C-alpha cells in the first residue's frame, strides 16, 4: 500500500487584548451580562460609522513582527457579506485584499517518540495576519423555538493568523498552536485562552500520495482545546485515509469535531456555496503605517504608528527566553520548554534558584519531577501551589547541607503539600528525619544492631 502524506494547515482567530472593540468604543470583557457591552455601531444602528482602534493595530503589528512577517505599510479593509443572527450589519469588516502582515514563520519544537530528551525544531510558514471583527453569539433554544442573540462579542477585534499547510499531524499542529499561544501571551496582544474563546483554531486537513497533487481538503471546526486539536486532526487524517483506501472520495466540506465521540462529523453546509460578495469598506481609508525612514518630519507621534518603534519595544519571545534559561542556568533545552509551558513555572524556578545554594541543574529536577507532577495530579496552577518558592528553597537548602537525605526530603515535601503552614525544618524535627553526621554515633548504632543480631552476623561472616 502506497504511503499517505497528511497535510495540515491552520486558521487561528486570536481575540485582541484591548479595552475597547476594533471599530467602536464599547468595552471588551468576558462573561458580562448579555447585551451590556454594545455600542450603537455594534448594534448596526443605521448611520453609525467604524472608527479604527489604535491599540488593535499595534497588537497586530507586534504579532506580525514576532512572527517574522512583513508588515504592509498600506493595508485595506473590506466587507464580507452573509446573513446571520450574530452579525448585525449583515457583513463583517475584515481584510481580504491586503492584510496588515504577510509571509512570516513560526518555529516550534516537538519531542521525538515521546522522549523528553530528544527535541526537534520545526517551522511553519505564516501566510498572513489580518484584522477583523468578531461576531456576536447566538444560542439556539430549541424547546421554545427561538434564538437568543448576545452582541457583547460583536465587533471585538480579532487577529486571524493563517498557517500554511506545512504540518503533518495532530502533534505538530498542537505544538505550533501552543507556541503561538505563548508568543501572544508574552506580547500581551492576546490572552489567547482557548477556554474563554480568545483563541479559536480551525484545521484544514487533506492527504495525498507522494508525488501526487494535494488531496481535497476538509475544514475542521469546533475544537476547544489544544489536546482536542491534536485528536481532531489525527482522527480526520485517519478518516480520510480509510475513506480513500475503501475507494471513496473526500468532500470539500466543513466538519465539526465531536469531543465526546472523538470524531469529526459533517456540519450543516453553511459555508459551502457562499459567495461573500467582498467589497471595499468605504468608510475606512487605507491603513497607513510608518517606519523610521518613512515617518514624515512634523507628524504628531500620537497620530501615527511607527513599526520600528514597536519593534524596539518587543519583549523577549519564548524562544529567546528559553535560550537564556539554558545559558544562565545550565539546564537542558527540553527543561526550558517545560518551564515556559506552565504559566508561572519559570518564575518559580528562578525564584527558588535565587534562594538556595543548590545548583540550578539539581533544582530543576525538583521543579519538573516533584513540584510539577504534584500540581498536575491535583490540577493546580503554579499560582495555586501550596508550596511556595521560599518553602521549597528552604527544603533544598537542608538537602544541600546534607542535613537530610533525598529520601527524607521527598517525605518532607509530601508533608508540605498539605499546606499546614509548617516549615521544612519543623517537619524534619517532627519526623526525626535528620541525617546523622557524627561518625562515632553511627558506629555505635551499627554496633548496637550487630550486637543484637549475633547469630545472623556469624552466619554472614561464615558465608
Amino acid at each position, binding site marked *: 500500500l502506497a504511503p499517505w502524506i497528511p497535510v495540515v494547515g491552520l486558521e487561528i482567530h486570536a481575540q485582541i487584548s484591548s479595552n475597547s472593540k476594533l471599530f467602536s468604543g464599547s468595552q471588551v470583557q468576558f462573561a458580562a451580562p448579555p447585551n451590556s457591552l454594545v455600542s450603537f455601531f455594534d448594534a448596526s*444602528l443605521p*448611520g*453609525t460609522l467604524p472608527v479604527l482602534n489604535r491599540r488593535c493595530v499595534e497588537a497586530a503589528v507586534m504579532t506580525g513582527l514576532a512572527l517574522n512577517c512583513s508588515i504592509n505599510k498600506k493595508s485595506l479593509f473590506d466587507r464580507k457579506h452573509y446573513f446571520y443572527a450574530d452579525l*448585525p450589519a*449583515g*457583513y463583517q469588516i475584515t481584510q481580504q485584499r491586503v492584510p496588515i502582515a504577510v509571509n512570516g514563520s513560526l518555529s516550534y519544537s516537538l519531542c521525538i517518540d515521546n522522549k523528553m530528551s530528544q527535541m526537534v525544531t520545526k517551522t511553519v510558514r505564516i501566510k498572513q495576519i489580518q484584522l477583523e471583527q468578531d461576531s456576536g453569539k447566538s444560542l439556539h433554544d430549541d424547546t421554545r*423555538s427561538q434564538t437568543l442573540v448576545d452582541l457583547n462579542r460583536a465587533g471585538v477585534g480579532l487577529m486571524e493568523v493563517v498557517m500554511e499547510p506545512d504540518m503533518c499531524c495532530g502533534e505538530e499542529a498542537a505544538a505550533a498552536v501552543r507556541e503561538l499561544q505563548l508568543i501572544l501571551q508574552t506580547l500581551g496582544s492576546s490572552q489567547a485562552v482557548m477556554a474563554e474563546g480568545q483563541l479559536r483554531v480551525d484545521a484544514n486537513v487533506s492527504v495525498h500520495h507522494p508525488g501526487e497533487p494535494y488531496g481535497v481538503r476538509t475544514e475542521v471546526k469546533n475544537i476547544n482545546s489544544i489536546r482536542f486539536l491534536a485528536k481532531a486532526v489525527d482522527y480526520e487524517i485517519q478518516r480520510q485515509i480509510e475513506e480513500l483506501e475503501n475507494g471513496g472520495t473526500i468532500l470539500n466540506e466543513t466538519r465539526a469535531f465531536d469531543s465526546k465521540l472523538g470524531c469529526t462529523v459533517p456540519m450543516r453546509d453553511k459555508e459551502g456555496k457562499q459567495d461573500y*460578495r467582498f467589497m471595499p469598506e*468605504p468608510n475606512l*481609508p487605507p491603513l497607513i503605517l510608518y517606519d523610521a525612514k518613512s515617518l514624515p518630519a512634523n507628524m504628531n507621534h500620537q497620530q501615527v504608528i511607527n513599526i520600528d518603534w514597536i519593534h524596539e519595544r518587543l519583549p523577549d519571545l519564548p524562544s529567546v527566553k528559553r535560550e537564556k534559561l539554558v545559558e544562565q542556568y545550565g539546564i537542558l533545552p527540553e527543561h526550558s520548554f517545560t518551564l515556559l509551558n506552565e504559566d508561572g513555572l519559570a518564575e518559580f524556578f528562578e525564584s527558588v534558584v535565587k534562594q538556595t545554594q543548590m545548583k540550578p541543574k539539581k533544582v530543576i529536577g525538583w521543579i519538573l519531577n516533584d513540584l510539577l507532577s504534584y500540581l498536575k495530579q491535583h490540577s493546580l496552577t503554579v499560582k495555586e501551589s501550596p508550596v511556595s518558592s521560599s518553602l521549597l528553597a528552604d527544603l533544598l537548602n537542608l538537602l544541600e547541607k546534607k542535613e537530610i537525605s533525598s529520601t527524607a526530603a521527598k517525605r518532607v515535601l509530601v508533608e508540605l503539600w498539605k499546606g499546614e503552614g509548617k516549615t521544612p525544618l519543623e517537619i524534619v524535627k517532627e519526623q526525626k528525619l535528620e541525617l546523622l553526621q557524627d561518625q562515632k554515633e553511627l558506629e555505635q548504632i551499627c554496633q548496637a544492631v550487630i550486637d543484637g543480631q549475633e547469630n545472623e552476623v556469624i552466619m554472614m561472616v561464615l558465608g
Partner: protein
Amino acid sequence: AALKDRLRSQVSAALKEGRVTPTELCQRCLALIKSTKFLNAYITVAEETALKQAEESEERYKRGQPLGILDGIPIAVKDNFNTAGIETTCASNMLKGYISPYNATVVQKLLDQGAVLLGKTNLDEFAMGSGSTDGVFGPVRNPWSYSKQYKEKSVPKSHSEDEESNWVITGGSSGGSAAAVSSFTCFAALGSDTGGSTRNPAAHCGVVGLKPTYGLISRHGLIPLVNSMDVPGILTRCVDDAAVLLGSLAGHDPKDSTTIQDDFKPFELPNLTDVSKLSIGIPKEYHVPGLSSEILAIWSKAAELFKNAGAKVVEVSLPHTRYSIVCYHVLCTAEVASNMARFDGLEYGHRSDMKDSTESMYAATRREGFNDVVRGRILSGNYFLLKQNYENYFVKAQKVRRLIANDFVKVFRSGVDILLTPTTLSDAAPYMEFIQEDNRTRSAQDDILTQAANMAGLPAINVPTALSERGLPVGLQFIGRSFQEKQLLTVAKWFEKQVQFPVIQLEEVKRHDSGVFQHQKSASFS
C-alpha cells in the same frame, strides 16, 4: 421680520434686535407648516420640542447671550438624518416608528448653536429617486404648483381638470427639504446629495442647493445610500445663508473617518464686483440630448453674462461624462446592497410576523419593509458583487470613476476656476407625467447633469436663475475645485445678485405674513 426673510442678512438681525422673538418665529413657521400640509413636505413635525428650543433660545437673547447666528432659527432636516427622540423613517416602512437614540453630527451641531428643529422632511424612500415621489408617506408637491407665477401661466387642458392634478414635483430625493425652504416654513434645511439629491430639488423649487466637497461635512448619523458619494446637503434661500450653514457644519469629525483632518475656517462671502480674473468653463458634454431648449437658452445667457462682465468663458471637455450614469448604477447599487443588509428585523425597525425560521423572517421583513426601488437596487447590487462579476462590474466601474474624476482634475489644472452647467434637463414635470416612467428611468435621466460631481467628490451648487415659460424655477449649477467652497460660493453669490430670481408668491404665506409685523413688510422683499 417676515417668514420670507433671508437668514443672515435679515432674520438674524431681527432676532438680535428683538424685533421678533424665537418663539414667535417658531410659532409662525409651525402654523405655516399646518396650512401648507397639502405640500406633504414634512413627515414629522416636532412641535413640542421645537417650541421648547425656541423658548430656550429666547432666554439667551434676553440675556444678550445668543449662541450665534443660528440661535433661534427654525430649520428642517431630511428624514434620513438621525434625530434623537424624533422619529427617523427614511420614508420607508422598514423604519416607520424608529426612534434613534442619537443625533447625527450635523444635527447636533445645529442644535448646539441654538437652531430650532421644526421637523423631518419627506424624501424618496432611502433617498433613492429624483422626484420625492417614492416614499411611503406619499409624494411631495412643489410649492411653485400653487404660486401665482405658475397659475398665471398654466392653461388647464380641460375644464374638468382642476388645480389638484396639475401640481408639479419637487424633484428629489430631498424634495421635502427643498419644498420646506421654498414655502418659507423654515429658513434653511438639511438634505443629502449622492447623485444630485440636493441640487435637483433645489433647482425645481427655486432655492439654493449646496453639495459640499466629500469629506468636508460629517456623515455620522446620515443613513447612507452610497458611502463613498453621500454628503449632507444644504438648502437655503440665498447663497449667503448657505455659507452660514456651511460654516456651522464643516470640519473634522472623529466619528467619521472619511472627514479630512484639516482645520476648517468659516468664512463670510466677499461681495465680488470684479470677475475679470475669473475663468468659467462650459463643459460641452453637458449639452445633453434631453436638455430643454429653454434651459439651453438660460445657460447660454448666463455664459454671456459672465463674458460681458469681463470673465474668461471657455468651452471645456469632460469626455467621460456619458459613462457616469452607468458607472453610478453599478457602484450605487453595490453599496446599497451592502448598506441595506443590516435591515433584517432583528435589532430595530420593522420585523415581520413570519416565524417559521430566521431566514424566512429576514425575507418577509425585507419584502414588507422595502419598496420596489430599494429591492431592485439590492438585487442589482448583489449581482454586481458576485465573485464572477466583481471584476467586470465593480472594479471596472471604479476605474471609470477614476477617469471621470480625472476629467475634472485636468480641466481645473488648465486654468479654469469654476464650471457652469445646467442643473436639470427641464423645469419641474407635472406629477402625473413624471410617474409615467419608473424610478430607475427617471433617475438615469435626471441625474446626468449632477452625478459626476459626486463621482469626483467636488463641491457644486444650484443657484435659482430664472422662471421658465410655465412660470417654474430653473436653476444653474456651478462646480468648483475640491475644498474651494469659498471661491465657489463667492462666484455663485455674484451670479445670484445679477439674475435677481423672483420671490415665490404664495397665497398661504401672504396670509401668514400680514398682520402683526406690517411695518416690516417692505424690508422682507429683497
